[in-house]
Structures are given as C-alpha cells and as structure tokens.
C-alpha cells in the first residue's frame, strides 16, 4: 500500500490525500512531527528527501517527493480514464503543467504567509501577501474569462485536472495568512466547484461546500 509521509496541516499533503480520496486509492498515512518537532529535518527523513520537505510517498518501494510531482504520478498510475492528467492532449497537458508551476508560486507566497502568521516563520509577510494578491488577481481573471467561455476548471476541457487540486489548498487557506479573497469572486465560485467534486474531503481550515444549486 502507498505510504504517505504526512502532516495534517500541510496543504501540500492535503492535495495528495484529496486526489487519493477522489480516485479511491487506499494509502497509509505516516504522521511526521513537522511542528514543533521538525521531524522533516531529522536524519531519517532527510534520507527519504534530502530537501527536508513534505510530502513524500513510498509506493511499494518507489519513493517520490514534491506535491506536484506526486499528483502527476498518482493520476498517471491510478486514473485509468486519464482525465486528471490528460496525456492524450498536448495543449491540455501544457496548460496543466503551466498551472502546476503556478501552484508552486502560490505555495511560496500564500502558504508562506500562513506559516508566518500561524506558526511564527520568519518571512517578509508584506512581500508574501503582495505576491499572493498578484497571483490571485491573475487566477481570478483567468477563471472569470473561463466561466464566460463555459469552462469550470483551470484548464480547458470539461473535467478538472491535477492542476485544480494543486492550486486549491493554499488558495482556500489564504485567510490564515491574512489574505482575503473578498475581491476574487471567480476564485470563490471555483473553490466551491472543487469542493463539490465527488469524493472531496476536508482538512482543518477547509470546510465543505454548502448546498449546491439544484440540478435538473
């Protein structure tokens, strides 16, 4: 069974828990004492990942680090429909990779702000928040114009991809870093759509969607 080296409050760990829940993939979480124990910097963990970062998976001896890389691996291996990581379409795949890189930028701004405010990390909080707002503005406009074209998700096509799951957690947790999403209505509608994906699960700080619009 897949082992997930996990920290409950990590958005990057959560996105893997989320994809595995959606795909119905069973896994065994291994709780790493990230805070305050700093177990991800301990010798045994550095052997798994010399970068000293979560998450890491061990799939029957195959060890992989980096949340975005793991999303791609899991979707490629465990989604026979190939919708979550659409290898069949060069254009769509290009978009997925583009937004996966965007997710990393969200991590280094919005997630950093959350670590600063909640867990006392020494980051330049104003730079983190300004950076996050710049990204959220770009994201909101992209989603708004996408909705106008009938697109519900980050990438074109009718099905969500790993890019949606990669960007979702630290957007939804942004208030914990003092980053309001009040000015981003299209982001709010998109996060609600993600929350209504069958199999969706929550983490602390992320709530389920309210009752959705009636479908006929």
């Amino acid at each position, binding site marked *: 069974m897949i082992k997930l080296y996990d920290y409950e409050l990590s958005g990057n760990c959560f996105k893997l828990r989320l994809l595995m829940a959606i795909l119905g993939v069973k896994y065994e979480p291994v709780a790493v004492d990230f805070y305050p124990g700093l177990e991800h910097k301990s010798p045994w963990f550095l052997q798994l990942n010399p970068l000293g970062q979560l998450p890491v998976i061990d799939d029957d001896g195959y060890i992989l680090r980096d949340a975005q890389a793991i999303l791609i691996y899991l979707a490629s291996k465990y989604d026979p429909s190939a919708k979550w990581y659409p290898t069949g379409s060069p254009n769509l795949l290009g978009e997925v990779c583009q937004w996966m890189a965007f997710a990393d930028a969200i991590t280094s701004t919005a997630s950093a702000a959350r670590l600063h405010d909640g867990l006392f990390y020494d980051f330049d909080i104003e730079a983190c928040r300004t950076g996050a707002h710049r990204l959220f503005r770009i994201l909101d406009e992209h989603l708004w114009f996408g909705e106008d074209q009938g697109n519900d998700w980050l990438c074109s096509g009718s099905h969500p991809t790993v890019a949606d799951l990669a960007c979702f957690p630290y957007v939804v947790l942004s208030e*914990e870093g003092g980053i309001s999403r009040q000015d981003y209505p299209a982001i709010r509608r998109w996060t609600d759509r993600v929350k209504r994906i069958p199999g969706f699960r929550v983490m*602390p700080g992320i709530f389920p969607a309210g009752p959705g619009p009636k479908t006929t």
Partner: protein
Amino acid sequence: MTLHPKISRCADPQLVNDWHSVADMATLATKRIHQTRLLGVPVRLEVHTNRQPTAQRMDLGIAIDSVEKYGFLWLCLGTPQRPPPEIPEARETDRHCVTGGSIALNVSGLRTVENFLDMGHFPFIHTDWLGVEPHTEVPPYKVEITAENEVLATECTFFQPVASPTAKGGFMVEYVYRILRPYTVCLYKSNPVQTSRMDSIYLFVQPVDEENCVAHPFLCYLKDGIDAPTVRWFMQLIFAQDKPILENQLPKRLPLDPRAETPIRADASSICYRRWLRDQNISYGAIPSAI
C-alpha cells in the same frame, strides 16, 4: 517604541503580575531569536550558545526574568505573585507530557479559552472526530467556582466518534474542565484504554494583545498504545479546525456584559467564566460590562 493606538497597555494587575507562556522552547532553540508581544508589550527572546534563554522588553530596553517550565518559556512583566500553574500529572512517568504546537490566533485569548470549554460546537466543527450529527445534545453538567478560585465544570459528557487517537469507535466521553487562571484552561478526558484514568490537555494562552493570542497547548497523555507524535497530530488536527471559527468571531474581544450575547443551558460554563472574569475586574481582551 510606541504602541499601536488600538492596543492599550494592560491595566489588570492580576495579568501584569502573573507568568505567561510565550514560546515553545524547541521552536525558540531553532529560531534562536523570536520577537513576540505579551499584553501589548514587544519582547525579544533569544537563546544563547550556552542554551540559556534571555528576554528583553523592547519598549523599555531592559532585560526581564524568564522561567522554563513544561517545555515553554514563561515571562512576567510585573512582580510575580505566584509561580506558573502546578501540574501534578506532568510528573507521572507513564505519560507523554509534550508541548502540542503553539498556534497564533487573531482573536482575544479569552475567546480562545471560552471556545475550549464549549462542547456544543463539536458535531459541527469537529465533525466525525469529537462529535457527529444527530448526537448534538450537550447533557446538563455542573459548574462551580472552587475554594481555590477556579472555574470547574464536572460531569460533562458527550458522544464522540473518535474521542482520541486510540479510540476504537464512538463512546460517551466524560470531561472535566478547569479554568486555572484567566488565560489558562485545561480539560481532563477519560482515556479510552485505561478508562479509570484521564488524559489532560492544558492551554496556556498568551495574550499578545487584546485581539491576538497564541495558544500554547501542553498535553499529558497516558503512553498506553500511543506515541508522542500522534498525540501532537491529534491536538493540531482539532485545534486547526477551531482556528478559522475563532478568527471569525465578532467582536474579537470577549463581551462580559450578560446582555451582550444570548446563551443557552449548554453555555453554563461560559456564563460562569465570564462572570468570574467580571468579578475579578479582568478587562484585557474583554469588552467590560456596562453594569
């Protein structure tokens, strides 16, 4: 250094002359230097190469005393009238006694203490862990102010699907809540393995200012069937579920006027806490009562 106009200095002698936990020693040792605030006063904590911590008031530029206890660094801005709280079970060797991971909250510390007492929110905020619908009833419990001037709520029971990391299935859990000091609260909870003994969770709340706090949890769990990282994992899982709820409470300070909010019977401990604060003239982090 001038204080933010919204942030008044603390005028409650009981708080100024008491010890407050301000940092987890493990985090402090990693950071070496940590700047925080206590009762609105900026303080700088530093761990030196001999591992000794020191603390300095940034507003006056003077060193202040600090003590280490329960894995935390404690400061007193005035003249301490008593030591930090005494925790007898912290000496029991068959327990994991660990810090739980300090978390900052943008809300009054008094609100954080009050939330800790509340069982009514379990099924809605800690869904499938500390509560689950339709088991939403908070059965009547007793609450009193003891001879030691503590708030004590006993005979608290609640149906919990996963009451603790070692719980196997849901059961009626028994709780005792105790408010030791205005910003210090603890709960005792029946251990799922040794049902005659209780695990305890202390929350040492650091009043950063009137509308910000840091919750410093200290956990004393029986070792039977559980490791220390799992104890921390469960605490942080639960506490991070409370965080967004607490940070969205308005007003951010705790209203002490009995007419300010409408309580129900399940809020008996909260009513008692507010009255107890009012009777001791605690105003820092509160909206004082008009009457």
